[in-house]
């Protein structure tokens, strides 16, 4: 176990954020899933929401003091074993660049790679779904090649369309519906990720796997 300590911080009195130390990798994320399952049963917790190597606990009712909850969380993390999940593999056809990938030039400028190299590095891995967030059905994916990491945009874009494939920092993902975003959109795909009438409402779950298939590159 890493000697570095987890970081805990309040989000107002509505929630507590737990950030695990170390790199975001599948093994650490599997421990986050395991911690989420345990904390979801605690009385003050309304919902345990996994993020990227972190976990937010929203409160049913804020505790009088955070100290007891924080130490319980640290102990549970120390004891948490990786929770392996047998996920489904979902393939998404992507058109990279062009109108559907308006920020490809920014990723080229930041990484110093050309479009073909970026597409190859982006479409190579099998990406595990680490967590859902951002908007209904959106998946945060692990395993992006660090060579195409590109900082989030200085000013968020007011609306990007559903199906936008984008890079934000060291992460990549696909928007499930139109809305604002601070990420760099490099391509587009089409897929229904969410239906509120279904149980569960999201198509993909943490542990499922996504493969991006190159359908075309527009320059």
């Amino acid at each position: 176990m890493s000697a570095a300590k987890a970081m805990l911080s309040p989000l107002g009195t509505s929630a507590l954020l737990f950030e695990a130390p170390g790199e975001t990798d599948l093994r650490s994320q599997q421990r986050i899933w395991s911690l989420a399952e345990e904390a979801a049963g605690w009385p003050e917790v309304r919902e345990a929401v996994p993020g990227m190597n972190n976990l937010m606990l929203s409160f049913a009712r804020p505790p009088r003091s955070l100290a007891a909850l924080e130490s319980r969380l640290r102990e549970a993390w120390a004891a948490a074993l990786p929770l392996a999940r047998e996920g489904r593999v979902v393939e998404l056809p992507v058109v990279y660049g062009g109108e559907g990938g308006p920020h490809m030039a920014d990723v080229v400028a930041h990484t110093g790679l050309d479009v073909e190299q970026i597409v190859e590095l982006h479409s190579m891995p099998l990406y595990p779904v680490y967590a859902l967030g951002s908007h209904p059905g959106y998946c945060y994916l692990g395993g992006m090649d660090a060579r195409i990491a590109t900082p989030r945009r200085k000013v968020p874009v007011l609306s990007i369309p559903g199906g936008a494939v984008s890079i934000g920092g060291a992460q990549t993902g696909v928007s499930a519906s139109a809305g604002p975003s601070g990420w760099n959109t490099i391509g587009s795909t089409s897929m229904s990720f969410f239906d509120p009438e279904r149980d569960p409402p999201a198509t993909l779950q943490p542990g499922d796997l996504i493969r991006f298939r190159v359908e075309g590159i527009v320059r």
Partner: protein
Amino acid sequence: MIEILSNAALATVQDLGRSGSLRFGVGTAGMMDNLALAAGNLMLGNEAGAAGIEIPVFPFRLRFDVDCAFALTGADCAARLDDVPLLPWWSHQAHAGQLLELGLPQGVQRASRAVLCLAGGVDVPQVLGSRSTQLRGAFGGHEGRALRRGDVLRAEAPGRACRTGFGLVPPAIALPLALDGGTVIRVLPAAEYLAFTPESRAAFWQRGWKITPQSDRYGFRLEGEALRPIAPMEMRSHGIVPGVIQVPHSGQPIIQMRDAQPSGGYPKFGTVIEADLWRLGQAPIGSRIRFVEVGWDEALAAQNEVEAWLRKVERMIDLHGSASGGRA
């Protein structure tokens, strides 16, 4: 039934928000001024969390097609029922065929959003445990979208005999919080607070911030002296809640509001405490706000104060149950 007669830009059906689906990427949504909703509902004998209509753009007109008790809270909008002026923060009885019109927000403490509650609450289906409109997901509320001209909504209990003709002292007066006449909002520092320069931290509390026109139910974008981190930060995405103050690379903060997404990755300077989110939600575009720092205990105390006010409202309404009209 009521029929919307305006191109009701951005008016939505909201309750106190949708909890329990954050892990599917579903934000809470919910009324920007949750106190106005709870108080309006209590006046009508509804559950505090029954659905109402949030109206942020004026004028706004609707027609009652059946007799129905209603309460108007939130912004004071010079409302008229068939040309009879209505008091704000008051309960009223409408008769079939009557026209309700809301004008521009007025008054010294000008607020920005009116809240209309109906007897029994607005009758729309619960989706994932809530009647709030999820604009991004296009579900909940009325057909998952903002209201528009010609929409017909139904009250859950239009026929219920409600005592009307009384009002409340609005929370802006009952729970005042102001500094030099401007709106003050209490903030609990968040994880990256100390990663900003001491000058930026000092300026954040000392200077005023303008609410820019690029502000809506998703977030309030502020304008002021840019907040500078000591070193650039690139964060991993994590859960967030309404009230979180994010600082993108531009240094101009964005406060997440009720339609906030449930996760984000910009550095977090602080979080507007839950007890002041209604106050912030009512601050008009173009107005200036100031922030004051609070700790955990003060934030809890502020929330208790809000809840105590609501309990007091409930008791006053019960007491007035047999008495004649007046301001409870």
